[in-house]
């Protein structure tokens, strides 16, 4: 365990779910304070983003148009896949959509992938060799990351709504949708809820899935950690391995699916923003 000392199951889980953060507030932060930076979240997400950029830079430098091979094929197939999704679901043409979708897919997938690293490995290494007490390695299990992406997408949705429909059209959308001109107050509430639900569902879906997945990993890890005492370890340790492996394999599907859903919904929402008639 990361802290190195014996702790109960609740402490173990809570310890794992605590971010390593610094406080920007004078006199220390409370548990719900806004002014703290989750260093681990920022570190891992930036690291993975840098990895994407580095690999992209390396690939585009060595790419050939004629007969691509090896890694270029792999990258091209991802690009093709994303472009196919954009072409299928996005009406018209907007050069920002495809790179945006690609970024979301790659980044979310890589951040989710951190979930597949054994839950205690990185915290243990950080604690033993660097003396870091708290470390939460999966950036998408920190609500800030999914919500940041969802809000960015939301900003784009609003921007393109106004750009395509015009300010008047945007206001009209709130006033006369979905029930026509006789129920204007209801329309405003309904449209408001609909629009706000977009970033919320987008962010919370990813966060919820990844958080729950992480929690299951922690619970499985607890099997060996707390129940295995003496001869019972002969039973519990193999069980933990089997369960962990099963959840791991299932989770490969989950992380890909979540990245895919986030990407597709982004395309769909932005596509809705681009259509003239709501």
């Amino acid at each position, binding site marked *: 365990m990361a802290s190195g000392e014996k702790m109960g199951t609740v402490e173990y889980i809570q310890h794992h779910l605590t971010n390593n*953060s610094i406080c920007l507030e004078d006199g220390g932060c409370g548990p719900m*304070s*806004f002014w703290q930076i989750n260093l681990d979240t920022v570190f891992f997400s930036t690291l993975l983003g840098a990895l994407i950029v580095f690999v*992209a830079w390396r690939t585009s430098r060595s790419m050939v*148009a004629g007969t691509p091979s090896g890694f270029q094929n792999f990258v091209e197939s991802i*690009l093709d896949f994303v472009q196919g999704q954009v072409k299928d679901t996005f009406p018209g043409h907007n050069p920002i959509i495809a790179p945006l979708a690609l*970024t979301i897919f790659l980044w979310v997938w890589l951040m989710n992938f951190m979930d597949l690293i054994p839950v205690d490995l990185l915290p243990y290494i950080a604690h033993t060799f660097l003396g870091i007490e708290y470390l939460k390695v999966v950036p998408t299990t920190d609500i800030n990351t999914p*919500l940041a*992406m969802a809000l960015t997408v939301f900003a784009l949705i609003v921007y393109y709504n106004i750009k395509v429909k015009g300010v008047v059209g945007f206001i009209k959308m709130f006033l006369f949708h979905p029930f026509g001109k006789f129920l204007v107050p209801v329309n405003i509430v309904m449209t408001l809820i609909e629009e706000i639900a977009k970033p919320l569902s987008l962010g919370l879906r990813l966060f919820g899935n990844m958080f729950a997945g992480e929690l299951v990993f922690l619970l499985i890890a607890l099997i060996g950690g707390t129940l295995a005492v003496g001869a019972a370890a002969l039973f519990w340790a193999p069980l933990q391995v089997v369960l962990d492996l099963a959840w791991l394999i299932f989770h490969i599907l989950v992380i890909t699916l979540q990245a895919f859903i986030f990407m597709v919904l982004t395309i769909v929402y932005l596509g809705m923003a681009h259509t003239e008639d709501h």
Partner: protein
Amino acid sequence: MSITVTLLIQIVAFVLLIWFVNKFLWAPMSVMMEERQKKIADGLSAAEKGKKELELAEQRAKEVLQEAKVQAQEVLSQAEKRGTEIVNEAKEKAVEEVERVKAAATAEIEQEASAAREALRAEIGQLAVNGAAKILAREVDEKAHADIIDALAKEI
């Protein structure tokens, strides 16, 4: 697990990452892929064009061949005709020649016959005179009756 200022940092990171991905991955890759697509399309259309051209050339070759065949047939029939003509001409000439030779031969024969007849007549005359002379030598003087003998010889 609460919303903190990390949110803002992540927004900035996200926007920057989109920009980077667009610049280093999406833009160069899609440009290249489009280029390749164009190249392949060009190649395919060129192949299509080549195929059409080949078909056209084949058609043309067939036409030329057909024409050549017709021409050859024409030449052949002409040659045949000419051959027949030559043969006929030759035949006619041969017949003419034969006629000519035959006429010449006939004339010669006639001439020779008449010459022979002439010679024969002279000889017979001589013979008759000789005979008569011999006969008459016993009875008549040769010289006295020579004019009668000559007149006789001329009557033969």
